[in-house]
């Protein structure tokens, strides 16, 4: 499974912006107006998609697409 492609799809659906318009470095909170509850949605969706359990402490690091991809890659490749 292409981790990055799947995460783009998940984030696009939750934020409500097309995948092609997503800036991987944009801040979820500052640029897309995401709050912590929506970030929790992203966390739950990637856990479900990739069959992983992410330490809840990492939620505060999941502030952009690149960061989510990096964290998920850590768990998938572990």
């Amino acid at each position, binding site marked *: 499974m292409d981790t990055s492609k799947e995460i783009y799809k998940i984030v696009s659906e939750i934020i409500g912006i097309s995948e092609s318009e997503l800036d991987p470095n944009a801040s979820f909170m500052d640029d897309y107006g995401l709050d912590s509850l*929506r970030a929790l949605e992203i966390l739950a969706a990637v856990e479900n998609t990739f069959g992983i359990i992410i330490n809840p402490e990492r*939620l505060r690091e999941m502030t952009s697409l690149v960061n989510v991809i990096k964290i998920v890659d850590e768990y998938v490749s572990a």
Partner: protein
Amino acid sequence: MINFNEICKALKQKVPFVLVDKVLELDYGKRIVAIKNITGSEAFSEYHFPNNPIYPGVLIIECVAQTSALLFSLSQEQEKEQNGYLVLGGVQRFSFMNIVRPGDTLRIEVNTIKIIDNMALIKAAVRVGDTTVAEGQLSFGVAKDE
């Protein structure tokens, strides 16, 4: 099975704004199934709509929110913890598929997707008999009394 009096003790909401009548199933921290009987004597039936009473979708969401709050509260009680109570923070992909009227019994099924620290995410389906009338996802923050 958890009856109405016990529900009233577990919820922060008070009568007449307690919208859950009975808990049928409870798997602490994971899943809860509750029922809500819709009656023609409730205030909505006079106004929403005159001569055509339809249970408002926003109250169906509140039924799900209270059922979720019960799951959280009763699970905390089981764990002998008391960290606060759930307050609705978001409604995601929530759809209403069928009309609910007086005489219907809502079966509210809530499954936990994720609970961490002071946030919770749940998935719910609401049925009347075998028909799904609403389903979707809700997110919650955890509030504490000041």
